[in-house]
C-alpha cells in the first residue's frame, strides 16, 4: 500500500466517548499535526511516531464511530476510508479504543474492524473507573475470542500506556491478520458479496458486503462499478436495513457472553454519582438556572482574569512601538512597521488571554460531560429556531469571539442547522464590541445608580447583549423559513458519566484552538490592518500637503505646543487621506442614522476589528494614541455639527451607533472563517449583507424614534 508519507498508517478507532482522543493526545503529545480530511471539514489529527524498534509510523485519530453503519458525515468519512484500500489514509493497522465499562457496546465496531481484516490491538480504556466500580477484567477470554492483543489502560492514571507502542511494534512486524471472520455472512449476503468481490477484485467478502450495503454514498467507486453493484443488489433483492439488523444482532449475540466472562460485574447498587448529579443539573427548573449561573461565572472570569494580561500585551506593544519610533529613521516602511504591522499584531494578540480562558473553561465543561447536558436541555428551544441543541455551545462561545464559535459548529451533522448557527453566531456581542460600548454608552445613559446598587450603565450593557440575542432569534427564524434542508435532523447523544478532566488533554485542546485563532485570524487581521494603514496614511498628494500646512498655520495662530501640533497634523492628514475621502463619500448613506463622516471613517476602519473604533476616534479627534477612553469621550462630547450647535454625539446618534455595532458584521476574520467552514464565499456575503441590513434598519429606527 502506498501512502503520501510512505509510513505505515495506524488508525485510532473507537466509539465516541471511549477516551480515544485523550489516548491519542497522550501518545502523540506535541507532535500533532491538524489538517482536514480531503473534501470535508473534519479535523484529521495525525502524528509521526517512532516505535521502540526504530520503525516510523503515522498515527491518525479518526472521528468517533459507533459502527460500520454510519449516522453522521463524520462516520461516513470513516467508512469511506477504511473500505477503500487506495485511500491515502487507509490504515495498515488499527489501535481500537474501547471504554471497558461499556465494553458490550464498544465491541460492536471492534468486531467489524477485525472482520475487515485489519491487524488490531484492542485497548480497554478507563480501567481505573472500572476498578472503583468493582468490575474485574479477564482480558485473556477476549484475546482468544478476537485473536488480537488486548491492553488494559487508563489515560488518567497512565496505567498500561507504556505497553501500547511495543504492542504496535509486534503487530506491525508480524502483520497479524485474523484468519477467520467472527460474523458468518448469511447465504444472501454471501452471494451478493461474492459477486461484488469478483467485480472489485477484492478478497475480503465482508468489505464487499459493506460496499454493496453503502453503495448509495460511497465516494470512491467509478460510475460503472456503482451501476454494476446496484444491479447486483437489485437482482438479489439485497435489502440493506434488514441485513444491518441481522448482522448487528448476530454480533452482539456472539460477543455479549464473552464480555460477561471478561468483565465480572458486581451488582450495581442503586444510583450512581452521575445519576445524583443529573438529578440537579438536568432538573426541569434547576437545570436552566444552574446553566445560567455557570455562564455568568464563565463570563465574569473571562473579563476579570483576562484584564491584567491584556493590559500587559497592550503596554508591551505600545512600548515596542515607541522604542521603534525612537530608534528607526522616519520613513514609509518604519511607519508601516509601527502603525501597520505592529498595530495589527497587537490587535490580534490582545485577544489571546480572553480566548484562552474561554477555551479553557469550555474545554473543562466539555471534558467533564456537562456540555452534552446543555445540548439535551436546550435542544427543543434551538429546534424552534431551526438549530440544534449543539448550537448552544457555539452561541455561548460567541460571547467571547465568533471565530471559535463558528469552528465549533462542526459537530452539528444537519447542514441547515449548522449553516444557521454559523450565520447567526456573530450577532451575539463579542468581546471586541466591548470597548466601543464602553466609549459610547456614556452618551446614552448617565453614570448613576438605582437604589445605590444597580449601575444604570451596567444595565444598558446588559440591554445591548439582550439586543444581540433578540437579533439571533429573529434572524434564525428568518433563515429557518428560507433555507432548504437536505437531510433530516436528529438528536441522539450519549450523556457520558461525569469524570474529572484529564489536564494534559485539556491543555492540548486549548493550545490547538488558540494557535488556530492566532494563525487563522491573525493572517487576515494583519493584512487588513496594513491595507487600512495605507488608506489612512496616503491620499491625493496636494491635499495631504495642504492639510499639513493648514494644521501648522492653525497651531501657530492658537499657540499650540509641539504635542498638540503633531496630533492636529495627524488629524488633518487623516481627513485628507484616502480613507477620509471614503468616509466623506459614504456620509450621505449614513446621515439618516445620525452619523457624520468621522464616524464613517471609524466604521470603515472597524472592519479590521471592531475595537479599532476607539483608536480611530483617537486619531480623528487628534488626542494621540496613548490617551484613555475618558479623554476621547470628552472630545467627542464637545463635537458640534458644523454651523449649528447640535451635538454630534447626542443620545439619539450614540444609541443609533451602538445599535449599529450590535448588529453589523464588522469583522473580516469572521467572514474569513465562515468562508473556510462553508467552503464558499456565498455564505460570507449573505452573512455580511443581512447583518448590514439589520444594523442599518435598527440604527435608523432608533435614531428617528429618539430625535
Amino acid at each position: 500500500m502506498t501512502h503520501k508519507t510512505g509510513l505505515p498508517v495506524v488508525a485510532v478507532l473507537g466509539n465516541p466517548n471511549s477516551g480515544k482522543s485523550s489516548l491519542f493526545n497522550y501518545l502523540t503529545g506535541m507532535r500533532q499535526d491538524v489538517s482536514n480530511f480531503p473534501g470535508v471539514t473534519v479535523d484529521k489529527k495525525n502524528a509521526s511516531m517512532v516505535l521502540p524498534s526504530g520503525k516510523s509510523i503515522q498515527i491518525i485519530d479518526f472521528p468517533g464511530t459507533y459502527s460500520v453503519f454510519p449516522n453522521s458525515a463524520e462516520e461516513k468519512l470513516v467508512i469511506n476510508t477504511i473500505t477503500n484500500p487506495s485511500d491515502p489514509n487507509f490504515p495498515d493497522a488499527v489501535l481500537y479504543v474501547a471504554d471497558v465499562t461499556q465494553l458490550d457496546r464498544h465491541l460492536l465496531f471492534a468486531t467489524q474492524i477485525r472482520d475487515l481484516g485489519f491487524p488490531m490491538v484492542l485497548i480497554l480504556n478507563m480501567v481505573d473507573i472500572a476498578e472503583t466500580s468493582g468490575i474485574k477484567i479477564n482480558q485473556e477470554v477476549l484475546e482468544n475470542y478476537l485473536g488480537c492483543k488486548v491492553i488494559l489502560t487508563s489515560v488518567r492514571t497512565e496505567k498500561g500506556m507504556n505497553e501500547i507502542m511495543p504492542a504496535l511494534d509486534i503487530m506491525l512486524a508480524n502483520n497479524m491478520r485474523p484468519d477467520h471472520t467472527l460474523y458468518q455472512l448469511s447465504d444472501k449476503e454471501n452471494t451478493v458479496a461474492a459477486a461484488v468481490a469478483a467485480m472489485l477484485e477484492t478478497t475480503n467478502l465482508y468489505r464487499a458486503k459493506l460496499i454493496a450495503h453503502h453503495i448509495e454514498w460511497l465516494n470512491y467507486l467509478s460510475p460503472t462499478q456503482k451501476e454494476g453493484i446496484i444491479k447486483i443488489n437489485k437482482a438479489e433483492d439485497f435489502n440493506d436495513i434488514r441485513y444491518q439488523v441481522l448482522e448487528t444482532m448476530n454480533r452482539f449475540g456472539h460477543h455479549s457472553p464473552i464480555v460477561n466472562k471478561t468483565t465480572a460485574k458486581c451488582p450495581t447498587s442503586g444510583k450512581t454519582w452521575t445519576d445524583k448529579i443529573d438529578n440537579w443539573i438536568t432538573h426541569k427548573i434547576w437545570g436552566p438556572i444552574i446553566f445560567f449561573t455557570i455562564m455568568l461565572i464563565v463570563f465574569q472570569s473571562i473579563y476579570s482574569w483576562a484584564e491584567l494580561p491584556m493590559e500587559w500585551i497592550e503596554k508591551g506593544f505600545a512600548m515596542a512601538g515607541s522604542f521603534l519610533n525612537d530608534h528607526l529613521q522616519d520613513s514609509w516602511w518604519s511607519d508601516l512597521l509601527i502603525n501597520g504591522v505592529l498595530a495589527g499584531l497587537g490587535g490580534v494578540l490582545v485577544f489571546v488571554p480572553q480566548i484562552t480562558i474561554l477555551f479553557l473553561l469550555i474545554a473543562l465543561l466539555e471534558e467533564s460531560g456537562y456540555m452534552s447536558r446543555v445540548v439535551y436541555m436546550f435542544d427543543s428551544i434551538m429546534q424552534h429556531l431551526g438549530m440544534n441543541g449543539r448550537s448552544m455551545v457555539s452561541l455561548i462561545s460567541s460571547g467571547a469571539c465568533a471565530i471559535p464559535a463558528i469552528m465549533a459548529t462542526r459537530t452539528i451533522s444537519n447542514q441547515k442547522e449548522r449553516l444557521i448557527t454559523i450565520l447567526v453566531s456573530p450577532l451575539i456581542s463579542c468581546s471586541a464590541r466591548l470597548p466601543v460600548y464602553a466609549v459610547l454608552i456614556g452618551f446614552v445613559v448617565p453614570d448613576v445608580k438605582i437604589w445605590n446598587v444597580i449601575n444604570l450603565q451596567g444595565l444598558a450593557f446588559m440591554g445591548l447583549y439582550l439586543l444581540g440575542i433578540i437579533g439571533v432569534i429573529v434572524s434564525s427564524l428568518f433563515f429557518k423559513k428560507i433555507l432548504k434542508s437536505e437531510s433530516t435532523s436528529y438528536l441522539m447523544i450519549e450523556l457520558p458519566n461525569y469524570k474529572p478532566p484529564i489536564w494534559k488533554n485539556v491543555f492540548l485542546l486549548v493550545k490547538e484552538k488558540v494557535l488556530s485563532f492566532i494563525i487563522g485570524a491573525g493572517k487576515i487581521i494583519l493584512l487588513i490592518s496594513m491595507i487600512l494603514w495605507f488608506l489612512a496614511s496616503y491620499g491625493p498628494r496636494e491635499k495631504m500637503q495642504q492639510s499639513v500646512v493648514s494644521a501648522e498655520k492653525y497651531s501657530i495662530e492658537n499657540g499650540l505646543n509641539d504635542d498638540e501640533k503633531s496630533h492636529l497634523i495627524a488629524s488633518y492628514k487623516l481627513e485628507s487621506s484616502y480613507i477620509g475621502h471614503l468616509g466623506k463619500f459614504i456620509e450621505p448613506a449614513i446621515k439618516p442614522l445620525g452619523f457624520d463622516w468621522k464616524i464613517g471613517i471609524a466604521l470603515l476602519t472597524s472592519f479590521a476589528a471592531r475595537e479599532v473604533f476607539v483608536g480611530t476616534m483617537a486619531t480623528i479627534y487628534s488626542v494621540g494614541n496613548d490617551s484613555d477612553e475618558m479623554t476621547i469621550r470628552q472630545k467627542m462630547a464637545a463635537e458640534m455639527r458644523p454651523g449649528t450647535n447640535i451635538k454630534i454625539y447626542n443620545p439619539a446618534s450614540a444609541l443609533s451607533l451602538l445599535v449599529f455595532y450590535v448588529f453589523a458584521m464588522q469583522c473580516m476574520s469572521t467572514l474569513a472563517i465562515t468562508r473556510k467552514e462553508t467552503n464558499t464565499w456565498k455564505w460570507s456575503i449573505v452573512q455580511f449583507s443581512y447583518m448590514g441590513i439589520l444594523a442599518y434598519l435598527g440604527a435608523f429606527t432608533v435614531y428617528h424614534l429618539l430625535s
Partner: protein
Amino acid sequence: MNLGIMPKTKVTMVRKSPFGGAFYIKIDNIQMAMRESEANTIFIQDIV
C-alpha cells in the same frame, strides 16, 4: 441499534428536558438524550 440498544434491553425514561421535546433515557448503565422521534424508532426496532 448501533448504540447497542438491543431487544430485551432495559430502557428507562428518566425525565423530560426543561423545555420539552427531548428525553433523558437510561439504557442499561448508560445515559442518553434523544428526541421524541428517535425514541419512537427505538421502540419499533425493539420489536424486530
